[in-house]
């Protein structure tokens, strides 16, 4: 037990260093980008005086070390991410407004991907080279070879247009629905908090297709990893001994599955972070209105504070997710602490 707490402590000491690195990266990545935001704001025809004026206003005329200092000062002293170059709105507000939507989509989508993917992996490895394995591999091949936006459009065409099972892809709720009272900003969660079950139904209904799109698209990762790990596990001595002791097949699958937990969890962490940008296309297709499309727009317009804010938030979130994952892995696997 002592070993474990030691490991956790080491992990926690690393956090401030990692946060500092993320902050520096968020600043560095944006400021070494070629292109001049002032030029984008003023347009190609602007005079040099006008450009200089805008640069002074944005602060981009100062040397980089000074700007870095000001950035850090702004973060820690003013506790602000700055304002958008274009809308002049606070980046913190923009992110707070959009972030919960994306979080909800990513969490639900990943949950679906993990459930569906590992189910495929379990079936595939348990019935190796028999029909469930073939079906599952076909599903993997299809979902990983179709681009996610196309998968989304395909689902819209089939499930909304042809079958009429899903509502129109117009966002979180129907056009005439009033959103629930904003508590967390996550619509589904807010409807639950407001105990508005009718609205929850609507929200869930609208979330169905985008969640399924993400779940299907990312399920292949989980299916492939869990299949590979489980195929080995099912022929392992551990599983053989479990069978030789007369354990039921359900228990045997459980024994084998424990081997696959760590790789699956690792994938959850990696994809979770990647999806904050990666879900942008799906968010656009379904008019979801999350943080992804907003970040992409900021990139194309070189809205430096917005890009920095996005990188910072996603970076910190990634750190947090990895930390939690590490703790979960340590909690689940008694061997980890000794390695």
């Amino acid at each position, binding site marked *: 037990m002592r070993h474990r707490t030691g490991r956790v402590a080491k992990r926690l000491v690393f956090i401030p260093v990692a946060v500092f690195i993320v902050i520096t990266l968020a600043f560095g990545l944006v400021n070494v980008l070629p292109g001049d935001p002032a030029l984008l704001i003023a347009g190609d025809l602007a005079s040099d005086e006008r450009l200089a004026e805008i640069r002074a206003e944005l602060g981009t005329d100062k040397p980089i070390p000074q700007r870095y200092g000001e950035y850090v000062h702004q973060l820690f002293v003013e506790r602000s991410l700055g304002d958008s170059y274009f809308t002049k709105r606070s980046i913190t507000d923009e992110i707070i407004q959009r972030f919960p939507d994306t979080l909800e989509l990513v969490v639900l989508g990943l949950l679906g991907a993990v459930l569906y993917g590992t189910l495929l992996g379990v079936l595939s490895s348990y019935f190796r080279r028999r029909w469930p394995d073939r079906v599952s591999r076909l599903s993997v091949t299809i979902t990983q070879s179709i681009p996610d936006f196309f998968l989304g459009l395909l689902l819209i065409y089939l499930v909304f247009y042809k079958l009429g099972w899903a509502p129109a892809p117009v966002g979180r709720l129907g056009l005439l629905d009033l959103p629930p009272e904003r508590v967390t900003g996550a619509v589904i969660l807010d409807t639950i908090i407001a105990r508005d079950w009718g609205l929850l139904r609507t929200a869930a209904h609208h979330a169905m297709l985008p969640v399924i799109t993400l779940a299907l698209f990312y399920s292949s990762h989980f299916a492939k990893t869990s299949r590979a790990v489980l195929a080995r596990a099912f022929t392992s001595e*551990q599983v053989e*001994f479990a069978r030789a002791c007369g354990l*039921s097949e359900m228990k045997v699958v459980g024994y084998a599955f424990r081997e696959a937990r760590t790789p699956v969890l690792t994938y959850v962490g990696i994809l979770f972070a990647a999806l904050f940008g990666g879900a942008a296309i799906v968010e656009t297709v379904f008019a979801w209105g999350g943080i992804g499309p907003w970040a992409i727009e900021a990139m194309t317009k070189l809205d430096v504070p917005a890009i920095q804010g996005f990188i910072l938030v996603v970076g910190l979130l990634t750190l947090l997710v990895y930390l939690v994952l590490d703790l979960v892995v340590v909690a689940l696997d008694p*061997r980890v602490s000794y390695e």
Partner: protein
Amino acid sequence: MAPLLEVNDLHVEFKSRRRTVYAVNGVNFSIGEGETVGMVGETGCGKSATIRAIIGLLRPPGRIASGSIRLDGEDLTGLDARRLRRIRGAGIGFVPQNPFGALNPVLRIERQFRNVVRAHRRAGRGRIREDALEMLNGVGIADPERILGGYAHELSGGMAQRVVIALAMVLDPPLVVADEPTTGLDLTIQRQILDLIGKMATTRGSSMLLVTHDIGVVAQYCSRLLVMYAGRVVEAGPTNIVLRKPAHPYTEALLSAVPRRGRRLIAAAGAVPTLLSRPVGCYYYDRCRYRGDSRCATETPDLKEVSPGHWAAVFYRKPTMSAQEQAPEKATTQAQAQEDRDGDDAPGTD
């Protein structure tokens, strides 16, 4: 009295699309109640396939092609998966080669005991814990309480194998099958574990099938011996008789390949056939020192009794004079050397 385990004309095949491996080709043997039987042979001789067929865990594409395996009169080859599962663990205990591989790495030992017991009967936690503690005591673990609360990786090799033996025997199976139970262990521990297995089988009155490639182990622990070659039992009989007077040239070759002080080590020439097809004639024909006429090349010898209780699958016994003189003498020295090495607890042979 009917034997506890009776294997009759067992055939096991590994059939894939391109080829079929005939791993076990008509194995016959039986194990009586309370008897400890050793099974020896080179790698690839069908030992593993035979015991895996017995515990019903042949790895695909392996399957029992024909024959019967009777435990207490019940044929296991015809059983459905449910019934077979109940036999495993409760009817037949299995002690595998590598104890670390066999234990679940992420479950506490107590939980593993619970899973095994509850796979067969309803039992409360406290009851199972008591049984587990008693078993662990029985396998010579000094602080069973601590072991129950711990994990597999905290155990040494010998300890892990003790825990595995306790798990395999917690349901008091009438038959224990041990598949080279000491291969993965230090030499110093091997002896302790074998002694333990022997003791456990005796005190609990179980029968045992001990699979090994170490003839020394068989000499010390088994009352009867089966020698396997190319998926067949080529010789079977009381250990002391088989070791003193091997009737099959393969047994002789195995005995010559055991290192002994003051004697040249003779490696058995040739290799086990690949068994991609069933050989024509005697399976040992290619490597046989004594092979004779066309009969050896065209007919497969069945086991026949060469002396009371001693069976061998041969047509001819040591046809040349020199061989007749040499072989038994050599075997005797080996058996004696064996006893010398094994010390006091070797079974009395005189």
